[in-house]
């Protein structure tokens, strides 16, 4: 068969596609699913959404606490270091001697 003829023949398959009937129990299945959703409320959609926000909030809080405690610790160490340096300078201990 030539290319053009073959393309026409293949395109003709469109007109031979018939209508099909869905599963007769589909409506029952849909109403059952809708009733299930009613019983459990709309939580199926909203719960993960709320949960995600709650989780994100927790993570943000933990990060904040961590940063604040780290900064406080760092500051404390710097003050201690500064005090030691000042003291050593005062005592003249920052010079090294080779004997």
């Amino acid at each position, binding site marked *: *068969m030539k290319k053009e003829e*073959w393309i026409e023949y293949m*395109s003709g*398959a469109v007109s*031979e596609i*018939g*209508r*099909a009937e*869905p599963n007769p129990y589909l409506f029952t299945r849909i*109403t059952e699913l809708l009733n299930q959703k009613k019983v459990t409320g709309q939580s199926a959609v909203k719960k993960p959404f709320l949960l995600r926000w709650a989780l994100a909030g927790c993570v943000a809080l933990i990060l904040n606490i961590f940063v604040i405690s780290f900064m406080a610790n760092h500051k404390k160490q710097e003050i201690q270091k500064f005090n030691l340096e000042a003291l050593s300078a005062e005592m003249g201990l920052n010079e090294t001697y080779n004997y």
Partner: protein
Amino acid sequence: MQEQSYNFEELYNSHVSLVYNLALNYLQNKEEAEEITQDVFMQVYQSISGFKQQSSLKTWIYRITLNKCHDHVKAKQTKKRRAFISSLFHEDGGIKHDPGHFDHPGVLLENKERSELLFSAINKLPENQKTVFILSQIEQLSQKEMADSMEMSQKAIESLLQRAKGNLRNQLGQLYKNEGFK
């Protein structure tokens, strides 16, 4: 409550065939089409109160069906990509994803091979062109109905359909060459 469920049943009975057949022509798989039909009617039930009657109920339901079909195809493609990537990192190598075989109850057995090849060419069209081709050539929708369902102008639909037909011929020509039909 009872009145609503009665109306819903009526709505279901008058539209189930169009939803199911559109999904079937889009996905060419019986089980997937039933899944889509189920999702569509669940959404219709939940959002019928928000339906503003700016378009007809039929085109509104068509639009929901098309959106569900597009989402389904996208999810399937993502799954396929993931399966391919994971197959690269596993020793057994084979792709475990099941591509969803051709199972169209509206196609007679003697036409199955021909229709399967035709649909494989249709599936290679860009999404908008595939949609417009199915709506016009298989679902036999009018240009106005197609324009409403796809939220486009009739002129845009017309040119999209022309491009779809041209591209489909090219795809079929390619198939003819690749498969070596004589």
